[in-house]
């Protein structure tokens, strides 16, 4: 059996890659995808820990995260479309009306 810590380290790496993507990429759609990747790395963490503890709560949590991720995409894409109608672009560098 593969040790739990391997899964945790892999998940941490995927999470970091996703977070780096969110910070560095400028295309809003790619940023969405990076956020999805981060959520999936959390799912991997939960599954690995659920196996280690031998209970189902972690697995149930994963289903909840999947449902939330789906809802988040629906809301996010709607907001993105509304934004594109105003400025014909999904580059987040051009979202700059509000500033201090």
């Amino acid at each position, binding site marked *: 059996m593969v040790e739990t810590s391997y899964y945790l380290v892999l998940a941490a790496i995927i999470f970091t890659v996703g977070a780096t993507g969110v910070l560095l990429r400028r295309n809003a759609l790619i940023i969405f995808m990076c956020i999805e990747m981060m959520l999936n790395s959390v799912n991997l963490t939960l599954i690995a820990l659920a196996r280690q503890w031998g209970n189902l709560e972690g697995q149930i*949590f994963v289903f909840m995260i999947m449902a939330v991720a789906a809802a988040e995409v629906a809301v*996010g894409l709607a907001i993105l479309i509304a934004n594109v109608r105003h400025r014909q672009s999904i580059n987040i560098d051009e979202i700059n009306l*509000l500033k201090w």
Partner: protein
Amino acid sequence: MDTALLFDNAVVLLPELVLAVGVMVLMMVDIGRRGQNGSQLLAGLSVAILLLGIGASVMIWGRAPVEYLDGAISDGFALSVRLVILIAGVLGVLLSRNWFPAIERQGGAFYSLHLLAVIGMMLMGTATNLIVLFIALEIFSLALYILSGFYRENARSIEAAMKYFLLGAFASTFFVYGCALLYGAGGSSKFTQIHETLATGGGNPSLVLPGIALLLVGFGFKVSLVPFHMWTPDVYQGAPTPVTAFMSVGTKAAAFAGFFRLMMTALPSFHDQWAMPLAILAVLTMTVGNLTALRQSSVKRMLAYSGIAHAGNILIALVAGTAAASSAAAFYLFAYAFMNIGAFTVTIALERQYGNENDVEQSRLAGAAERFPVLAAAMAIFMLSLSGIPPLAGFFGKFLVFKAAVEAGWAWLVVIGVLNSAVSAYYYLRIVVAMYFQQPEQAGDEKEQPFVPASRSSVFVVVVSVLAVVVIGLQPGLWADLLRGLGQ
């Protein structure tokens, strides 16, 4: 599982259930209405549903705390936070009525989302389980992303929604990663179970600190702690002002309630490790919030930075980490609900006067007291209360929080808090001075504009808020007894 278990103690969630049924009724009524009519009816219905929710909370007020299915609890703290959120919800609906054109077309969607946000926020205060906590956080966050972009004709509103969504979803992933690690540390998603496992030397204690750090990022974003606050002024300024008013109070109350319960029931044995980082965040949040508020020209942005500073004050209560501190935080949030929503309501009324779309510049407030004596007087009361001048509500909120912190041995933190209050008085009083003692620059054309009467519901909100701020200030003991802390 026995199905009878589903109904045992379900009364814990009575207010949430009332609102959930109400949301469905609201959507049905919306389907039934014809064309442009009936958005007033929807507003009335939403207020009625929220009042029923308040009634349901009052009904279960005195009972001994019981837990529902290992996921939610109805102790005094949960009920106090619920009350704050429901009041913010009622006032928010009243303000939204008539405010923007989109509401005439899509009132059903707007009010349903408003109520869903209230449900999520209330659940946050009752959650005793990581899964429930996460779901509650997402329910209200998703609703608020949409609400802040509801003024679709306005590019700033859409932009605010976009920023709020991208950063909010990003912060949520940190939050849920923290939850996953805590689950790994304690082997359960139940707060009390996590505490038991870790306190008896079991579990994986090495996962606790990374878990807390990640949770802190998620919570810090929701309550806008420095350095996770960059979204706050943009979203507060861009979102429709009634939504900003509701959101500024609701998210703070909900996220603080959830954070309090998590830290104090799941991780009290790690208080030594998490108190100091939180204290540093509190100092940063108060200082940066107040200093940046000093140089804002927009009233809404100034209020956003003032909200950040207030989040720092409430965080002091969490650093203290006692039951008395949690009831002080509940009192603070209760007082903050009225004074902050009141300030935003006056801002809405002034927006109408100056014909400005969704914001007021502070420079335009010069001489406002002459033109709108009542509005100016109300604004002055809210500003004095926000800056914490006795005997108004805001003073006693700060007083109770600082007192609890001193008793828990955090005197140095309180000193910094008091110094920050002194700084904050400068920008709150600047508005009062501008309204009462300055003359408008182009007096001619300002005076020619006709007076636009404020809508009846916003007049009502201002009156209620002024009364509440004064009454809470004059009778603080009464309310401090009513609003309970954790485990009370």
